[in-house]
C-alpha cells in the first residue's frame, strides 16, 4: 500500500508535466533551399540534419514515371510553419507537404507552368517561399500561390 502511494506521488507530477509542455512560435523555415540529387534508385539523401526520402513517388505523381527520379535534381525548402515545398526542373507543379511520423503528406499541389519549369529555385522570404521559374517569381505559402504576388 505504501509502495502504491509512493508511486502515485512520483508519477502524477511527471505525467502532468509531459502533457502541458508546448513550445510556441517555432520557425521551421530553412534559410535557403536544399538541392538534392537523387541516387540511381531515386532516393534523395541530403546532408545530415536535413531529410532523406524516396523521390520516386513524387515523380510518379508528376510524370507518372517513377524511374525518372534516378539522378534527378530535386529542390526543397521549408517554410516557417514547417511545410515542405518540393519541385524539380521540368515539373509543372510545386508540391507542398506536411510531415507526420516517417511520412511526407501532400498538403497541396500547385500548378506553376503547364509547359514545365526550367531552372526553378526556391528562396525563403519574410512572407513566404519565393519560387523563381521560367523567368517568373512566385510567392507561395501552404495554400499555394499568394494572390497578387506573381511577378
Amino acid at each position, binding site marked *: 500500500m505504501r509502495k502504491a502511494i509512493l508511486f502515485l506521488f512520483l508519477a502524477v507530477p511527471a505525467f502532468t508535466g509531459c502533457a502541458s509542455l508546448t513550445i510556441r512560435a517555432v520557425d521551421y523555415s530553412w*534559410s535557403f*533551399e536544399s538541392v538534392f540529387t537523387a541516387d540511381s534508385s531515386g532516393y534523395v539523401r541530403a546532408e545530415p540534419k536535413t531529410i532523406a526520402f524516396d523521390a520516386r513517388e513524387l515523380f510518379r505523381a508528376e510524370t507518372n514515371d517513377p524511374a525518372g527520379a534516378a539522378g534527378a535534381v530535386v529542390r526543397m525548402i521549408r517554410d516557417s510553419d514547417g511545410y515542405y515545398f518540393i519541385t524539380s526542373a521540368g515539373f509543372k507543379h510545386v508540391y507542398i507537404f506536411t510531415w507526420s511520423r516517417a511520412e511526407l503528406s501532400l498538403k497541396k499541389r500547385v500548378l506553376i507552368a503547364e509547359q514545365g519549369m526550367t531552372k526553378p529555385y*526556391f528562396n525563403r522570404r519574410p512572407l513566404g517561399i519565393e519560387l523563381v521559374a521560367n523567368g517568373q517569381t512566385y510567392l507561395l505559402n501552404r495554400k499555394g500561390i499568394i494572390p497578387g504576388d506573381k511577378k
Partner: protein
Amino acid sequence: MKKIAGVLALFALLLLQAGGALAQTSDYEIIESFKAKQQFLLGALKNAQDLGQPGQFAGEISRLEADYAPHRKLLADGLYPGTLETSIVELREQLKKTTERVLLAEESRKDKVTIVEVTKRVEESGRKIVEITAQNEQYRAALEKMTVEVQDLNTRIQKLTDENTGLLGTIRALQLENKQDKESIARLKELTEKLNANIRDRDELIVKMMDSLFDEYSKANLSEAQKKNLLAISQQNDYVSKIVTTIDGNIAYVGAAQLTPQDVRVLRDQQKRLAVKWEGIKPFVSKLYPDEPTRSRDITTVDGRLTDLKKGTDAAIWRSLQQVFSANGIAIFPFSSGGEFHGSVLVYLDEQLKDPSRARYQLFRNKVWDSPIKDQWLPVIPTDELSERQRLEIEERIALWGKKVSALLWRWVLIGGFIVVAAGVGVGVAVAMSRKKKTPTVTS
C-alpha cells in the same frame, strides 16, 4: 612556369566571378558560389608558388567580400557556423601565410642561386689560385734564373769596365809618349783593338741585360706585385747607372781611339742599337724612380750621353781621317766636320796646283785618297755630312792636279828629246869636221 600557374589561377578566379552575377538567383546558388569562390581562392593561395602581381590576391579577396556583403545574413546561415567575415578572415590569413611562404621560398631560391654562384666563384677562385700558384712558381723560377743571369752579366760588365779603364790609361800613356817605332805602334794598335773588342762585348752584355729585364717586364700576365719585384731587382742592380757608365766608356773610347772605317761601322751600329733599346726601355726605366725630379734628371742624363756619344764618334772619325793625312806627311788644316774636311782638302789641292809635284801627287793619290779615304772612309761618312757635290769638287781638283803633273812630265820629255837631238846633231858635226882634217893630200 610558377608565375604562369599563378596568373592562370587568378584568370580562372576572374572567370568564376564573372559567372557569378548575383542580380537574381537562388540563395542556395549565392551560398554555393561564395563557397566555391572562397574555396577556390583558398586552394589557389595554398598552392600558389608565386603571388603574381603584388596585391592581386588581396584585391580579389576584397572584391569577394564586397560582392557578397549584401548577402551577409544569408551567408551567416549558409556557412554556419562560419560567416562572410570569418571566411574573408580565413582567406586573408591564408594570403598572409602564402605571402610568407612564397617570400621564404623566393629567399630560399635566391639563397640557392647565391649558394650555386658562390660555389662557382669559389671553384673558379680555386682554379685561379692553382693557375696563379703555377704561374708564380714559373715566375719565381724564371726570376731566379734571370737574377742569376743579371748578376753574372753584372760581374762580367764590371770586369770589362775595369779592364777597359786600364786599357784606356795605357793607350793614353802610349799616345803621350808619341813613340813612332814599329813596336810601339803595334802595341798601341793591339791595345786599341782589345779595348774596342771589350767595349763591344760590354755593349752586348748591357743590351742583353736590358733585354732580360725588359722582356720579362713586358709580359702581359705579370701582376703588379711581380712588376714591382722586377723593378726592385733593377734598382738593386743600379740599372741606369750602368747604362750611363757604358755610354761614358764608349765616349772615352771614341775620344782616345784611332778608328778604322770598320771600327766606325761597328760603333755606329752599336750606337743605333743602344739608342733604340734605350727608347724602348724608357717607360720601364721611368718606373724605377720613386720621384719625378730624379727620374727626369737621370733620363735626361742618358739622352745627353747618347748625343755626346754620337758627337764623339763623329769627332773620332774626322780625327782618324786627319791621322791618315798626317801619317803620310801631308800637311792639311785640321778639320772636325764634313765642311771643314772639304775646305781643308781643297786648300791643300789648290796649293799643289800652284806648284804641281808628281811625287806629292802620287803619294796623295795612291797612299791617301784612292785608298783608304775614297774606298774605305768616304763610304762610312754620310752624304749629309759630306755631300756628293763636295766629294765631286775634291775629285775634280785632284784630276786637275793630275793633269798638271802630266803636262809637266810631257814638258820635261820634250826638253829631254830636244837636248838629245841637239846633242846628236852637235856630235855629228864634230865627227864630220875631224874627218875632214885627217884626209891625206895626193901629189903626182
